[in-house]
């Protein structure tokens, strides 16, 4: 399994990573090696085998659908960690704009 720089670029776009041309080449090669290696799993017969998504055996863990109120202090700390803000509001770039991708 070999990835072309073009395919790599597509993956990087989906993953929201900006890569330089030399990086694209390097990652395409490295990822191809890893994908080759993991293809060893094809030799395992998994017909009729159930998938394992988790190992605890727990199912449907519920709690009451109730908001847990945090103190003003904690709220202020969370606001303080916003990368950009206007007062108490988180500032982000427009989701819909002509400049978008």
């Amino acid at each position, binding site marked *: 399994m070999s990835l072309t720089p073009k395919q790599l670029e597509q993956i990087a776009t989906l993953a929201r990573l900006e890569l330089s041309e030399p990086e694209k080449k390097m990652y395409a090669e490295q990822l191809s090696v*890893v994908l080759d290696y993991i293809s060893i799993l094809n030799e395992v017969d998994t017909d009729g085998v159930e998938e394992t998504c988790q190992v605890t055996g727990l199912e449907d863990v519920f709690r009451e659908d109730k908001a847990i109120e945090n103190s003003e202090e904690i709220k202020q700390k969370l606001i303080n960690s916003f*990368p950009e803000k206007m007062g108490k509001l988180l500032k982000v770039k427009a*989701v819909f704009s002509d400049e978008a991708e």
Partner: protein
Amino acid sequence: MNLNELTIKQAHDGLKKGEFSSVELTEACLKQIKKRNKELNAFISVFEKEAILEAKKADEMIANKKQQALTGIPFCVKDAICTKDTLSTAASKILGNYVPAYDATVIRKIREQGAVLIGKNNCDTFGHGASNENSMFGPVKNPYDLERVAGGSSGGTAAAVADNMAIFGIGEDTGGSIRQPASLCGIVGLRPSYGRNSRYGVMPMCSSMDTVGPMTKTVEDAAIVEEIMAGHDELDATTVKETVPKYSKIKNQKLKIKVGVPREYFELEGMDKETKEIVEKQIEKIKRSKDQKIEIVEVSLTMTKYAIPVYYIIVPSEDSSNMGRIDSIRYGVREEAKNLYDVYAKSRSAGLPAEVKRRIMIGTYALSAGYYDAYYRKAQKVRTLIIKDFEQVFSEVDLLVTPTSPFPAFKIGEKANDPLAMYLADIFVSPANVAGLPAISIPAGKTKTGLPVGMQIIGQRMMEEKVLKLANIII
């Protein structure tokens, strides 16, 4: 003996008898950090002032007869675990300014005892690595040989505990990240069963395999800390409600057990001969131990060679999804950008190292339309077969004993440009994660050149107690 060289048990007893104060104990650790951290690079943050304040409070607790197991004991924490009001970067640039408003549940439990948080440890960024060379803060050096790696991803914590910069540490283990560095630095590292300890506040990598556990100087210390960390947590729905045994009472107990030695863990191509011999010698010692009834049998785990490929599909897949939240929107370092896409792409590219990008991309690919069945679903099926392989063996034996790492600490740079060679460093430790089993690494001896070699004990799910008991007999 310097105070910073004490174990938890010794420090606890000394504090109780008033032989020294927590402030003195904390100062001894801080002194060692000052002396050695420049060389070892084991800490990203050191909380000198705060630690002394916490130690003073602990001394008051002790004076008021309110001492608990960890009161006044200085400890360090891997930087990928959230600690309240203190920088928690995960060794990344993107979280270079991140200060959580809360402690991870396991850290809260330890701090409620009055333990003293002395600093945050360097690690492979977001836990992605087996050598600590993938840290954006530079590699951690091995205290036994500064030209060699400390292991990873919890390498800073392992080096700090091995070098007596703290009395104990807390690491995180998704594919060996507690046990492998513990092995390479000659300390004890316990990865509990998945579901035993709360993951709340532990930065997620692979949600179905991540665990958090103690890194200590002795098995008894690991048992003391694990007893405090373990248990159900409302904030982590994957924690189980089973009662936590009194792990700290494991000392001087008689064992009547059958221990399996899986041949696949000793026949690996390229394995270090000395490592194999040291572990085999320990197994001989267990066999001959007079007071115990321990039977050793050879067993086979035929699926072993598939654990790493399964791991390197499931981990990057869940990882790429978990890393989606590291987007510089609500927290983290945001790069200048002209639109929303560029905020994500530029911030992530500048703030994450190569290995994180590799894993995000492998995961994105493995989960993408048309490839999901061939990669992720296939790996989940093989995961089932690996679990069955262990179940089969555990119907015959109580515990398994193996080497922790196929080789002792390797040279910095030796495997840095070969991701696959690095992945194979975890070949003996990742199967326990794939199957959700508890496992410990304990020091087994040293090579002729003085490098530590670790051995691993793997148990059945929720059987930490048995794992700790055997470990305690060996060292």
